[in-house]
C-alpha cells in the first residue's frame, strides 16, 4: 500500500489524541459516586440530629437511668458510624489528578470502601439490634411476638439489601480491577 507520510503521521497523532469511552465512563462513575457521597453525608447529619437529638430530649425530660443509657448508647453508635465514615472518606472526595489512572484509582478505592462498609454496617446493625432488644426486654420484662416479627422483618430486608449491594459492588470492583490490568 502506498503511504502518504504526512497523513500517516497525522493519523497516528489523531488516533492517540483522545481518551477512550472507558475514561468517559470512569468520569461519570466518579461524578455519580461523589453525588451519592454528598447525599449520604446529608443523610448522616440528619440522622445524627434527629435520632441523637431525640434520645437526648427524652433523657432530659425523663432522666431515669434507662433513658440515659439509651441516649448514651445511641451516641456511641453514632460516634462509631461517624468514625468509620470519616476514615473511609479520607482522600476519597476527588481524584489525585485528572488522569485516567487517577479516576480509576479513586473508583476502586470507593468501591472497596463500599464493600468494607457492608461488613461494618452488618456488625453495627447486629450490635444495635442486640442492644435495642435488651433495652426493650429490660423496660417491659418481655418481648412480645409483634416486636419479634417487626425485628425479624427489618433484619431480613436489611440482609437482602446488604447481600444485593455487596454483590453489585463486587461485580463493579472486578470490572474496575480488570480495567486496571488492561
Amino acid at each position, binding site marked *: 500500500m502506498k503511504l502518504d507520510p504526512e*497523513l500517516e503521521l497525522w493519523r497516528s497523532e*489523531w*488516533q*492517540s489524541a483522545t481518551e477512550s*469511552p472507558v475514561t468517559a465512563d470512569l*468520569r461519570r462513575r466518579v461524578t455519580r459516586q461523589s453525588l451519592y457521597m454528598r447525599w449520604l453525608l446529608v443523610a448522616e447529619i440528619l440522622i445524627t440530629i434527629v435520632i441523637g437529638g431525640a434520645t437526648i430530649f427524652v433523657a432530659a425530660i425523663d432522666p431515669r437511668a434507662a433513658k440515659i443509657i439509651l441516649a448514651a448508647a445511641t451516641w456511641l453508635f453514632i460516634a462509631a458510624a461517624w468514625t468509620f465514615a470519616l476514615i473511609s472518606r479520607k482522600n476519597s472526595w476527588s481524584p489525585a489528578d485528572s488522569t485516567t489512572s487517577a479516576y480509576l484509582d479513586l473508583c476502586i478505592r470507593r468501591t472497596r470502601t463500599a464493600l468494607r462498609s457492608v461488613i461494618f454496617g452488618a456488625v453495627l446493625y447486629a450490635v444495635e439490634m442486640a442492644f435495642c432488644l435488651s433495652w426493650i426486654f429490660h423496660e417491659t420484662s418481655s418481648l412480645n411476638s409483634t416486636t419479634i416479627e417487626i425485628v425479624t422483618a427489618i433484619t431480613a430486608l436489611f440482609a437482602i439489601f446488604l447481600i444485593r449491594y455487596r454483590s453489585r459492588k463486587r461485580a463493579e470492583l472486578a470490572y474496575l480491577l480488570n480495567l486496571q490490568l488492561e
Partner: protein
Amino acid sequence: MTLSTPAKSEPPENESSDQRFDRLLAANGPALVRLAASYTNTTSDRDDLFQEIAVAIWQALPRFRGESSERTFLFRVAHNRAIDYLRRHRPPSSPIDADTILPDSRPNPEARFAGEQQGERLRQAIHGLPVPYRQVITLVLEEVSYGEIAQILGITESNVGVRLNRARQLLRTLLEERK
C-alpha cells in the same frame, strides 16, 4: 494514497440489538469520541455529544438494513448528530462557511496544559477547520475510504478529494501557527 475499504459486514446471526449496539460501540467507540471531540470545545461537551451519538445510533440501528457497511452507517449517524449539535450550540449568525477559516478563540493549548502532546495540537488545529473540511479530514484520519466518505457525507468521491486537499493545506497552516 490508497485507503482500505472494509467489506460490508453482516451482523452475526441471532445477535440481539443490545449485543449489536455493544459490539459496534466497542469497535468504534474511540473513533466516535474523537469525532465528538472535533466538534466540541470541552471534555464535558464532548462526552455529552458522544452520549447523543450513542443514543442516535441505538435508535437508528433497527432501521439499518445493511445497505452500507456498519461503519459507514455509524459515521453517517454520528456526523448528522454532530451537525445537529453544532446547529443547536452555535449562534445563528455564524453560518458554516467552507471558504473561511473560523477563528479559534480558545486559549492556546500550551498555555492551558504544559507539555501538551502533539495529538492535542493536531486536534486543536482540526477544530479550527471549517466544518466541511473537518468532516473529511477526520474521516480520512479514521481510515475511512473515499467511497465511504462520499456515502457518509452525501458528496461525490472527487469532491472528497478536493475537500481533502484544501483541508490539508489549511491544516498545515494552522499547525505552523501553533508551533
